[in-house]
């Protein structure tokens, strides 16, 4: 799939990451992210959800985009420039101004020994957003944009505020530099149910009012559906399905997406599950297999799935990594 660099805000091409896990004298290679390929357009802001279970590689992918982890393979282009080739100074003066993170645990995102506002002021000064004289005003404005105010958090330590307030402060800090892209790693999964929706609504508003694109990492398909334009489903390092959220979650094609969608516990007693599910016996079994990584658990597995890695196929307006939809392979399918 060709990516026209000029039109893309973010271009992820064949990105991969391999970790070496040492155990005694041996090193096991562990493929966290494998052949990931997608792009965010520059013309209009969008929210891309990256959904998957633990071990799917979604967090590693987020960290590579943020530059916290170096990719083992592939390329990352942000606004036409190769992110992995940036110097430390360019990274600090340009990249981090444009791309900012939101982390999962709001209380881990700030030092418990420092007042929260210090991070907001730091961001304001270090990127030259404002000077000492009008810093207060800037910080206050950033906080108001997410439903807080300077008065509310002034002189407070993180443990004196609720999870929702701290996470809002984190979002405010991320917005101070006026970034084009926010990478949010499960931003609401550690918050109470009653607080979640207000933060999710704020993120949705950000896209519309402040022109910020968001990569929304999550394991919660319901909030992904609510907030995202497009969604990528990740399984063991692969993107197995990528398309608009209505298509992928409305009419999922990949068997994994189908099981995932049907396993979300709907808050409606009339929609209880019917079938039993087979749980994976162990995690490493799926990583080391040849062929499709879902073959061991797939209800529609074919012989070819166990030996040949599926290609990315365009079907029904989205991309699917599955032999079921591969026209050319169909001829070779065993009856």
């Amino acid at each position, binding site marked *: 799939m060709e990516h026209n660099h000029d039109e893309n805000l973010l271009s992820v091409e064949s990105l991969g990451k391999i970790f070496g896990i040492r155990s005694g004298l041996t090193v096991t290679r562990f493929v966290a992210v494998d052949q990931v390929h997608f792009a965010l357009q520059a013309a209009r802001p969008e929210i891309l959800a990256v959904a998957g*279970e*633990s*071990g799917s590689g979604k967090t590693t992918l987020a960290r590579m985009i943020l530059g916290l982890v170096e990719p083992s393979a592939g390329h990352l282009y942000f606004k036409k420039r190769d992110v992995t080739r940036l110097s430390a100074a360019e990274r600090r003066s340009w990249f981090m101004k444009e791309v900012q993170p939101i982390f999962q645990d709001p209380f881990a995102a700030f030092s418990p020994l420092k007042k929260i506002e210090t991070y907001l002021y730091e961001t304001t000064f270090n990127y030259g957003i404002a000077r000492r004289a009008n810093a207060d005003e800037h910080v206050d404005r950033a906080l108001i944009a997410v439903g807080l105010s300077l008065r509310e958090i002034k002189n407070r330590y993180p443990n004196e505020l*609720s999870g*929702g*307030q701290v996470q809002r402060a984190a979002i405010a800090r991320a917005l101070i530099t006026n970034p084009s892209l926010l990478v949010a790693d499960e931003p609401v999964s550690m918050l*109470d*149910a*009653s*607080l*979640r*929706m*207000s933060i*999710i*609504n704020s993120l949705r508003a950000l896209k519309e009012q402040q022109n910020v694109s968001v990569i929304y990492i999550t*394991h919660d*398909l*319901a*909030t992904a*559906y*609510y907030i995202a334009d497009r969604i990528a489903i990740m399984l063991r390092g692969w993107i197995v399905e990528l398309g608009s959220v209505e298509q992928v*979650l*409305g009419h999922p094609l990949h068997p994994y997406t189908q*099981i*995932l*969608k049907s*396993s*979300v*516990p*709907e*808050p*409606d*007693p009339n*929609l*209880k*599950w019917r079938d*039993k*599910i*087979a*749980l*994976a*016996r*162990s*995690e490493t079994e799926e990583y080391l297999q040849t062929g499709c990584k879902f073959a061991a658990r797939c209800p529609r597995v074919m012989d070819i799935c166990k030996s040949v890695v599926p290609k990315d196929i365009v079907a029904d307006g989205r991309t699917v990594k599955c032999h079921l939809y591969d026209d050319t392979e169909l001829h070779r399918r065993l009856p």
Partner: protein
Amino acid sequence: MMDIVKTSNLKAYYITQAYGVQRTVKAVDGISLAIRENEILGIAGESGCGKSTLLKVLLGMVKSPLKVVGGSVTYDFYASPRDALTLTESELRATRWKDISYIPQGSMNVLNPVRRIRDTFRDFIGVHLNTSPREMDDMVRSYLSELGLPDKVLNSFPHQLSGGMRQRVTIALATILSPKLILADEPTSALDVLVQRGVIQLLDEIRQREGNTLVVVTHDMGVHANLTNRVAVLYAGQMMEEADTGTIFKQPRHPYTQHLIRSLPKIDDKSERVSIPGQPPALDNPPSGCRFHPRCPHAMDVCQAEVPALEQVGPDHRVACFLVSEKS
């Protein structure tokens, strides 16, 4: 339908004193609850609503700074009611894992990281059984395989297992002796969607097979919808509403429950979800009267002044709300 555990106006506070500051956290503040034999009761509430404390008191794990300051807890497993709060430590130890067992939040709170699973089972279960270690290992092995866990789990350390497997081991520990009552504190949080479904189905299977009673504490309403028969909604240490699961989701009467249900996102529905303004109160300084009044869109004067009592509004439906009691 017998009640096997009952609480009556239970009040349990954390009273701490550090560096001259006394704090009283009213974690459980007047909860009257009856757990019926063979049911799956869900306790819904967010963090800081007192649900974990409630479980601790039900288990008899009341250690300073936690203190029961009022009300009672009654055990009624063998048709001879006993006051749970006056039991001695050895009596409590006899009931734990055999009559009542506990699946705590986070499997690493049960599994000793430096002991193999096999040894953990021996530690916990060996007290109640009079078998040789070899026989017990066999029993454990066959039980674990019924739960879908391979043999090598026995020899492993907890960190060698995935989160889902650890949780299943913890469930095995809590259910292997077929206790009458199983208390599960957020058994599925931090688990993947597929593993979560497996765990929920597992809990239901065990309950159907052994006939025990299950109490599931979780903030995840989806879990309640898929697993429980009845739901009690807790907020800031008090019970707001209690009804069978269908009613809670279809006809919630308490404003908090209504908001909770309505704010949940569903797949195939992109319409705007409104969330509850404000945040859950700190339990060391709870609001006066009805704990929900600062965030309630229908708050009246009386809500700030008095605590509403739980009142029957349907055949199996109780609500603590002045709005509802005025209307009825």
